[in-house]
């Protein structure tokens, strides 16, 4: 669309520009600002700017901080290693050989995206803990491994490696088709050409997806909280959560820790962006072409078993453990037919149950978040694409900032901003505060989708509406928005799925007595009603996966291919 520098006669709508600016200030800038201010001015909460930086530096040289930051790095790097060890061989096998049932493995490896990590972690606890399902079935338990730093890394690796697997198998396939065949023409064997051509060319893609895994793992709350706390392994996220939710509340400390965590995430994010925009990675884009894959021969069975084993660990085991717990009348009763029943489900879904309220709350919040974030995202992307000068840079920067804001940091920022005693009115202590948190965390998704599809729109589609006599706002409403709607719907579905089961921000900012799906599961598990919690977890996974899938196929059916972009 408009290319910047030149004075265009067809400026974007000023109304939309102001909506974008005010929306982003409210949702993103204010929480960030309050974190920074609180970190610098420890007395800010009581209205004073006294003793700037006093606590900031004290926290920075606090050995506690070194411990937390070190643990965070350790966890991030360890998770990266686990994810790489799991993903690289599978991706290479999948890309270069004819693996039987390849499409089925792909579909199964998508499921970890649908299970929130904290639910998977709870499933692992039920399986590996003493007297857990593994011990009931085989007589041994792996609690020492599970409740260890290595165990946390392994489980987070299992939750995240499919990101790397999908990026890498696609990259391997493209490069394999395009370049390594050329290498083979020049006399390199299959293995030589993999090591010398395909792997080096895939490095940027591998590194970028591993950095994403790193960012995901340092921002994760549920898994380290569920597993690490039992062995005293604290990371920045849990440290921040501690300082803001447990007495004595340490606002400046949590703000400073938040800044450290955000810096780490920011570095990972910038590195990733830099890797992906470098020229040598761009040649790797595009669709995989059909190319001759090797037969596995005698290795067919071992390779299939490997895929089955990893898919079972990443997908089957957590879900089965959740289901088993949900179906067991009592945990101590064990896996006996007499102990199985639908009691927890009927309690959860019975009239007037707390769980049902939580479920309803999350669905309403998820839907509202999806609609608002989608709308704000579309307006922001449009204003950025149409915009010029400094205003455009600021807007662009604000809209991608939440990419490096972990949920816990957003929560801290929102508490600091909206819990100020001098505010005449505040959304604090109402469900709206959750809406603010979710929109902030998820805004980058719709912005990314909208930007991509705005760039695909021809320049002239909007220009011709303007020449036909439509003002800028009307051109957006009648032409631009309907045209990017299909990809916005995809983005909004994604937002819904994540927002409706978000954990850490919900724990921190939900009004007293207000429950969401995640809060409910977490509390039930804490209070020892694992069965009820797992019944909710199972319903949540089912609902937040099935509703989006149903919506997508409904849309595909309704548009019957007439709307571009819905594949």
């Amino acid at each position, binding site marked *: 669309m408009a290319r910047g520098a030149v004075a265009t006669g067809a400026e974007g709508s000023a109304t939309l520009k102001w909506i974008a600016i005010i929306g982003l200030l409210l949702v993103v800038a204010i929480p960030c600002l309050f974190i920074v201010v609180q970190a610098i001015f420890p007395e800010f909460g009581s209205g004073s700017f006294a003793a700037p930086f006093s606590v900031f530096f004290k926290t920075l040289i606090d050995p506690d901080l070194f411990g937390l930051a070190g643990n965070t790095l350790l966890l991030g790097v360890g998770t990266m290693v686990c994810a790489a060890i799991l993903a690289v061989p599978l991706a290479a096998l999948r890309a270069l050989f004819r693996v039987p049932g390849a499409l089925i493995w792909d579909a199964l490896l998508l499921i970890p995206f649908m299970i929130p990590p904290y639910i998977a972690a709870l499933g692992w606890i039920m399986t590996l803990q003493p007297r857990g399902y593994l011990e009931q079935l085989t007589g041994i338990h792996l609690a020492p491994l599970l409740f260890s730093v290595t165990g946390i890394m392994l489980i987070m690796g299992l939750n995240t490696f499919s990101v790397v697997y999908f990026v890498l198998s696609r990259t391997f396939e493209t490069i394999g088709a395009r370049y390594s065949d050329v290498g083979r023409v020049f006399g390199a064997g299959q293995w030589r050409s993999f090591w010398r051509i395909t792997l080096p060319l895939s490095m940027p893609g591998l590194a970028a997806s591993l950095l994403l895994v790193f960012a995901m793992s340092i921002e994760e709350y549920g898994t380290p909280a569920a597993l690490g706390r039992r062995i005293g392994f604290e990371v920045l996220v849990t440290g921040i959560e501690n300082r803001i939710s447990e007495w004595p509340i340490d606002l400046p400390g949590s703000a400073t820790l938040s800044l450290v965590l955000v810096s780490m995430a920011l570095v990972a994010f910038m590195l990733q962006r830099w890797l992906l925009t470098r020229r040598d990675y761009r040649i790797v884009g595009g669709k995989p072409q059909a190319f001759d894959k090797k037969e596995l021969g005698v290795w067919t069975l071992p390779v299939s078993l490997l895929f089955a084993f990893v898919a079972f660990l990443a997908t089957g085991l957590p879900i089965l453990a959740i289901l088993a717990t949900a179906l067991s009348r009592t945990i101590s009763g064990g896996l006996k037919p007499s102990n199985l029943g639908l009691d927890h489900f009927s309690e959860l879904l019975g009239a007037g149950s707390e769980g049902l309220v939580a479920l309803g709350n999350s669905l309403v919040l998820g839907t509202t978040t999806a609609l608002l974030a989608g709308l704000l995202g579309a307006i922001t992307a449009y204003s950025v694409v149409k915009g010029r000068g400094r205003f455009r840079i600021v807007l662009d920067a604000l809209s991608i900032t939440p990419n490096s804001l972990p949920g816990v940091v957003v929560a801290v920022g929102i508490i600091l901003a909206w819990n100020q005693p001098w505010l005449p009115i505040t959304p604090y202590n109402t469900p709206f505060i959750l809406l603010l948190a979710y929109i902030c965390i998820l805004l980058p998704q719709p912005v990314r989708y909208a930007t991509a599809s705005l760039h695909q729109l021809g320049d002239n589609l909007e220009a011709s509406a303007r020449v036909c006599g439509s003002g800028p706002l009307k051109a957006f409403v009648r032409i631009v928005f309907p045209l990017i709607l299909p990809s916005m719907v995809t983005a909004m579905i994604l937002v819904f799925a994540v927002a409706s089961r978000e954990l850490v921000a919900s724990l921190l900012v939900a009004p007293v007595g207000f429950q969401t799906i995640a809060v409910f599961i977490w509390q039930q598990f804490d209070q020892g009603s694992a069965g009820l919690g797992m019944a909710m977890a199972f319903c949540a996974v089912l609902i937040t996966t099935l509703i989006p899938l149903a919506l997508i196929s409904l849309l595909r059916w309704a548009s019957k291919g007439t709307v*571009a972009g819905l594949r």
Partner: protein
Amino acid sequence: MISSPSAPAQSHALAIRSVSMSYGAENVLNDISVDLAPGQVLGLLGPSGCGKTTLLRLISGLLLPDAGEIEIAGGKVAVPEAGIALPPEKRGLGMVFQDYALWPHMSVARNVAFPLQMKRVGAAECKERVAKALDRVGLGAMAERRPSDLSGGQQQRVAIARAIVAEPPLVLFDEPLSNLDRELRETMVEEIADLVAELNLSAVYVTHDHSEALTLSDHVAVMRGGRIEQTASPHDLVNHPATSAVADFLRLGCLMPVARVADGWTIEGTGLVLPEGAFEGAQAQVLLPEKALRLGASGPSTLKTTVVRAQTRSTGQALTLRVTGTPHLIRLSSSSPVKAGDMLDLSFSPEDLRWFPISDQPT
């Protein structure tokens, strides 16, 4: 819609005065001035990248000039010095884009109805006018289709219907036919010419194809490198090109350098002496127009040439000839069969030559 006329009423459908525009440091348009009387068509002709689209976008308001003045139907729409900058929607124009720019999410009828809806024309009248416009371009039966279900030529017709449906005082065409294949282009040129005449439209028609420009326009402005080289009627343009660049771009014939000798001028490399032309200086360029050439040595002046290529065409043979003793090529069609390597004599009258100064090199 358009600010009150300050010039004598309706003297011009479009008036552009000394308009300049640059993208950053790159000067794209330089001191452009054009006038267009109501009911006439102005052809903007020029090679790729010379600034035609930019000029059109300035007229439509999608871009703003750095300096100068643009008037549509007597009302000033862009005067940067006076801070006047009407946005596109306030200029009441019709425009046909090079890439059609039809909205894929609306049916053909709704695409065409859009300009009327923007003018808040009532539903019944709107429907009637849409049907009329679609009938006019021969698409009455396709009103409910999606643009994506139409052929390229049909899509272009929809774009034309959308541009004329609101009966705007000025219609802009930006290379509307360049995406179509040649056969379709030729029929569409005639259709557009008929439509323009029937509706008595004022229009600006941008193209880099001279036959299109010459067929459709009452006046043609030839652009080069952000300037207008010449504005003239098609007849004058072909017969009296103002510069060698115009002659070269229109492929009117062969341009050759000439030098002064004792008894007149000679085409360098040939022994041919031309009588004294009305031209000062020691060197010049002459244009030998294709239509002034005859085969044979009947005179008054005769050039010796060698056949470089002879290609068979539906209308006869397309010959490429090299003037003996020079690198200059002459293109000519002939009905008598010749083959490569043959020697041919060409005759012309010296008064048909066009003279240009030598400094004026075509790029």
